[in-house]
């Protein structure tokens, strides 16, 4: 097998030996498998929400009563944009290697992520203040807060991870292990995007229609 065939399509570790590439592949592959198990967690939460959004409403409000699509649409756009800027950051890391532009894209990604979490917290505030819809109100709301909250928690963790990696880029430089960590964070970030699409469709669009 030729060297270029053995390169991981997403990683560019620069001029280096095949062993390093193989090692990199192992780490990225391991992370893919971790993402799979994380997806199982989310699918369990989705299934729980699916049951409870219909049968667990009890005396509380139903999905139709409380969901407002416009802020959620804005959140979706913000999160998609953050995934896009992260993609630009990775391209920068792979092809152009301009440290300042890399830093710029990463900062933008982090800010968009933070904006997303902020908007979602604002959603929660509105739910609590205007609809009295707390997680303690009904099984449906427990499941709703757990599903969206777990997603928001993942995004928050990813932001902290991004900050740590930014510090590592500044102190350790763009060395192999740090690049690989950025790659893995990118995978994580895109996965959260995909999960959000699921939430947007299944929780919000579906919830408002039914």
């Amino acid at each position, binding site marked *: 097998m030729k060297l270029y065939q053995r390169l991981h399509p997403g990683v560019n570790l620069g001029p280096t030996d095949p062993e390093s590439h193989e090692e990199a592949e192992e780490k990225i592959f391991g992370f893919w498998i971790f993402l799979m198990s994380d997806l199982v967690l989310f699918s369990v939460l989705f299934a*729980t929400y699916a049951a409870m959004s219909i*049968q667990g409403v009890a005396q509380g409000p139903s999905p139709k009563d409380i969901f407002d699509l416009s802020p959620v649409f804005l959140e979706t756009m913000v999160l998609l944009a953050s995934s896009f800027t992260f993609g630009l950051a990775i391209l920068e890391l792979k092809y152009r290697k301009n440290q300042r532009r890399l830093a710029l894209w990463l900062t933008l990604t982090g800010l968009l992520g933070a904006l997303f979490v902020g908007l979602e917290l604002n959603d929660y505030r509105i739910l609590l203040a205007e609809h009295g819809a707390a*997680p303690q109100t009904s099984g449906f709301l427990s499941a709703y807060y757990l599903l969206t909250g777990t997603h928001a928690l993942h995004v928050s963790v990813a932001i902290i991870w991004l900050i740590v990696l930014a510090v590592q880029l500044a102190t350790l430089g763009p060395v192999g292990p740090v690049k690989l*960590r950025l790659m893995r964070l990118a995978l994580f970030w895109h996965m959260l995007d995909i999960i959000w699409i699921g939430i947007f469709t299944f929780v919000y669009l579906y919830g408002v229609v039914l």
Partner: protein
Amino acid sequence: MFGRLTWDSLVFSGAIENPSASEFVASGAGSVVVLGGIALFILLAVMKWWRPLWTDWLTSVDHKKVGIMYIVLAIVMFLRAVIEAAVMRSQQLAAYDGAGYLSADHFGQLFTTHGTIMIFFVAMPFITGLMNYVMPLQIGARDVSFPRLNAISLMLTVAGAILVMISLVVGKFSTGGWTAYPPYTGIEFSPGEGVDYWIWAVTLGSIGSTLTGINFAVTIYKKRCPGMNLFRMPMFTWTTLCTSILMIFAMAPLTAASLMLALDRYADFHFFTNGDGGNMMNFANLFWLFGHPEVYILVLPAFGVWSEVVSTFSGKRIYGYTSLVCATMCIAVFSFCVWLHHFFTMGQSAGVNAAFGIATMLIGIPTGVKIYDWMLTMYRGRIRFTVPMLFHINFLFMFVLGGSTGILLANPTIDFQVHNSLFLVAHFHNVIIPGVLFGMFAAVQFWFPKAFGFRLHEGLGRKAFWFLAPGFVLAFFPLYWIGMMGATRRTATWADPAYHIWFAIAMLGAAMILAGTALLIAQVVVSVKRRKELAVPLGDPWDGRSLEWSIPAPAPSWNFAVVPTVFSQDAFDAAKCNGTAYQAPAKYEDIHVPRNSAIAPLIGLFACASAFGLIWHIWWLAIIGFVMVWAVVIVSSFNLDTEETIPADVVRAQNEAFLEAVRNAPGVTRDDETSSANQGKAVPERHENRFAQNMKGNMTEATT
């Protein structure tokens, strides 16, 4: 400051304030934990073992040492859980015409901790430890893919086990059974700390297992030595792969279910409550979405062990390798399609029950394939009745019996009669004990010489077997009878005099199991004392077939001086037959091994502290512990210098000395393998025949 924790939480205060037999038993158990801890502390201090314990073991990231630590944990927890079992049996015997000596609440804690420990802190660490030790050696790898993650998995499991041990001294454990079904385990019916102990112990263990699954799957996919394609992997490695995949998919539902239960209890959510839209059936779904694959997580590695044992001690390559692989994969897939049989009686339609009943019965087919393959491996083999082989033959009979009662239970109409009775208890002990537990005992007998460089005493092992195997039959078969007669599980007292004789027989069986366990411990002690005459430094005491037997015993920290290349199944056996074994490599290279690291024990410590804070509502401890776990992760990620190099000369010196010793050793035939003549160099049995047989086997496979 200390949340709900008060002096009254200590188990000893119960015995002082409210003296009764039940409280004395509880205090006694608590004292054992405290005194045992103190004794261990003093022993380590007197022998000056603290430093080696820390530098050689706790901070080690070597997969072999991590594996051994897992198994030590499993054995310690096994001793507790098997004693609890005997206490429960004696209570049920004593409860004839009276209340016995344990309170119902105490009995509830006993069966809950017994189940929780046996599944999460005995069986899981046992199989994980074994997979850790054996699998990388079988695939010719230097290490697992993520050595530090491996150590972290271990320490998270240890943290969970420590919580269960703490519950003997501080506060009470849950009384809700190992499945912790709400609404009983909800805050309304179980307001104390018991269920919280269950939640956090199990959550820590299951996170550890998820990480283990990821680590092993990647290791098997990416770290096989040259030539080791998937269909040349030893059966144990195959079962490890399937188990790892099950772990990756099955542990997440458990984590989700236990955290939802925690949210119900701590934050007044309504996932599983009676009112306000809660749905406790969803807990049953989530729990068994984990729980059913879990039994295959446990039994598949044991199946791998049986495959290795039967082929080695029959001196034949395993019969029907491909069918065994397919059967293993089928079982792994089916295991996700049957979870609903755990609640046939909870009100779903007959159609749903029938579908899950049929799916459950289907698992019998691939399992039957395996049984026939093992039997046919023995056919025309030269069978040596060593201790692992005795366990294997016992397993064939007992597992088929246990499996048959499983098929009975898979029929919803029969299940309606016997669910929640001792018949069910008899069934799952009948599969788990001969299948998993005895499998692990056999594995220890089999691989112990590889791990420590000397064999275990054969005679004491046999004696232990002759207590354990009949003891198991006496302890559990009576439960089928009284289960059919209507005795329910988890019941501390009973009134029907017809049960008495059966409980008495079961008690006798429990006593024999305890005696067998004591003999196993005696076996290890005696073997350590006589380790000189039992030594097998040359590493191949049983005429082994896969790569782990080709290296010295105990295995060096780098496993293989030079990464081997394989050309067939049973690679080491093939090398011995065609005379290419023990060849000196042309060239040695520097070997990079991961450096010891304190992050795993620190993470375990802080996770344990955080969970303890959560259990007792000591919020500052919970928060500090949690933050510290992640602080350790983040700070250590700044250190990129995690490997050390073993110079080629060191490797050369050790390996050449080993090869020299092998060359000069006389070798031992199978007749003498249990004698002190066995130094770990095997004279391959009937050399010509076996080579021909191997070739024939390969050709048959190629044509089919």
